[in-house]
């Protein structure tokens, strides 16, 4: 038991350190946003024919070495390609067009193709639509837990559930910030995974405690 509490203390200290480090990273460097949500630039090239994403990828890899790029097909005929990168220089645009003209026999001109600026998406705009659903679900779960585990003390159960969720989510967000995992499309599934694990873990623990309590009561009655 003594050993267990020592482990808990060490774990708590590690979590606390992660959260503090996370707060510092978020405050100083912010999140490393997924390119889809990051401030970026885009060019659209009308190829007049169907194309393979992989072929365009080869060209962008060659022209924009080392840069993360999003390649998308445009409109129903899929004969236009949209290339997005954090930054596209005029030279890169010209090279892209030259390579594409060579590959697809098009006569695209760098003068007529504009580099569009794509604004950044704020983290709060990504998260906001999920806040209300999570809040509704959490309130109902807390009500259920308070009723189901009332023998263990409803208020204690509610506070433990809220506290544990705050700690686990804060740890996750901090880890995302520290490890520079892109903040974007996979963030919500990660949040969901941690939320589910926390809730299932807490339920398992409360069930065990409830069983022990019931057994104790039985013994006392006996």
């Amino acid at each position: 038991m003594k050993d267990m509490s020592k482990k808990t203390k060490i774990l708590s200290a590690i979590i606390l350190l992660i959260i503090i480090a996370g707060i510092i990273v978020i405050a100083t460097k912010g999140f490393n946003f997924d390119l889809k949500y990051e401030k970026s630039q885009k060019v659209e090239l009308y190829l007049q024919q169907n194309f393979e994403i992989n072929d365009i990828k080869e060209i962008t890899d060659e022209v924009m070495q080392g840069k993360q790029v999003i390649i998308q097909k445009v409109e129903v005929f899929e004969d236009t390609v949209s290339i997005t990168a954090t930054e596209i220089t005029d030279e890169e645009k010209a090279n892209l067009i030259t390579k594409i003209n060579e590959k697809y026999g098009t006569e695209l001109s760098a003068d007529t193709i504009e580099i569009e600026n794509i604004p950044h998406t704020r983290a709060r705009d990504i998260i906001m639509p999920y806040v209300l659903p999570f809040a509704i679900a959490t309130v109902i779960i807390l009500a259920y837990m308070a009723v189901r585990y009332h023998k263990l003390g409803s208020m204690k159960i509610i506070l433990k559930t809220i506290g544990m969720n705050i700690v686990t989510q804060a740890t996750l967000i901090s880890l995302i910030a520290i490890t520079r995992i892109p903040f974007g499309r996979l963030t919500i599934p990660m949040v969901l995974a941690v939320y589910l694990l926390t809730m299932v873990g807490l339920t398992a623990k409360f069930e065990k405690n409830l069983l022990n309590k019931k057994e104790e009561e039985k013994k006392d009655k006996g």
Partner: protein
Amino acid sequence: MRKIKILTITLIIVLITMVAFFGIYTHVQNRMENQVRDYSYAMDLDGSRTIRLKVSDENKTTVKDAEGNEVADSENLTDEQITQNGYTKEETPYNSDEVKTVENYRKSKEILEERFKELNVDNYIIKLDEETGDILVEITENDNTDSIVSNIGTPGKFEIVDSETQEVLMDNNDIKLVNVMYGSNSSSITSAGTAVYLNIEFTKEGRSKLEEISTNYTKVAEDSNTTTENTTANETTENTTEDSTTEESTEKTITMKIDDEEIMTTSFDEPLRTGKLQLSIGSSSTDTDTLNDYVNQANNMAVVLDTGNMPIKYDVDTNEYIKADITQNELQMAQYIMIGIAALALIILIIRYRTLGILGAISYIGLASIFLLVIRYANVVLSIEGIFGIAIVLILNYIFVNKFLNKLKENRKDLKKEEVKNANKETYKEFFIRIIPVIIMVVAFCFIQWVPISSFGMVMIWGIALIAAYNVIITNNLLKLKAKN
């Protein structure tokens, strides 16, 4: 006999698996076509309508009289008429430099978000360039997208002005809410049917203004006696003669404008004290399509007015459908990874529980296949969160099967049906009690409109229901067939 039954169940599962993973192909016009329905994908996996809204740099032409008042119906005036009347033409930008501020850009974005919420847009991304004020919108592509796009750049400026002086009598600040109402019209044979109304409800202050306006701008009846009565309420018509034509011309009217476009010019029969104004959209009709059109028009107008006046006028610069950057190949790759992990987990199950493990694995594969078919035929829209939901369901089912088999492990060589029955009961109790919070969460998520959340909720709810039903029917019976009486 038991072996035949096990073999039959196994073959059925193999068949379902083939259908779920490879499909059923038939000859359609010289090509093979899969008859199994495809998955419906959300915006993040399929594609979205991308609209760039640019801050308008267009100018508004206004014609003013010698006193500097704006002239009504100036669009119909020719340059000659303008000069003859001594009017002047002025070009003013829709968005002056004072208006182009970060605060106004942000407010416009917020209003846009409000509009999307009221229009029930189930998934969108709005990006604001705070330097230029340009807004980039990504919304789900469906039947309503065009109608939504046609309204997003609309400022939603509402005004009731004096038709003559152009004095603004009421504006957006007086509106409390705008909604759509229906009414049946059976009074006339020619216009029988349902009528669609735009109901504008005003604030307390707006209500008083409307009452005052409707008192001052009263209709002048053609009958001379009535006219005389009306004049008491309207000073401008005090000097009316018996000639009804002259009386009509002196009637004070108001003009209702939406985005500087004149919607109607009217006067009132009697003072309006309810603080509500109903505008009919189109005429009464019994045709469902026509009515739907009117309802859509009214709804869009209601949303635009209800969400307030956008401080900036935007022009739709680009409007195109862009496919998702996650390609079908990448989705297939994710599917193969999931199959690989599941295969590895099932091998562990077989090594751990031997024959029981094989039966558990067969049952598990059956559930996974049926689950993938259910998702397709239940019209569940798959987003990244939905795919994550599939993975969670497969993990939950693995936990269930493992728990079930674990309870039978000790007696696996001399297994009795009663033991399987009891193990099944215990597994159900233990498993479902532990996942009640998950069930609560996914049920709540099913009612949320935001597609990524509802996708996760729908996938999970079908998955959990399937785990509950399938394991009692298939896994339980498959293991019972292995047991002795």
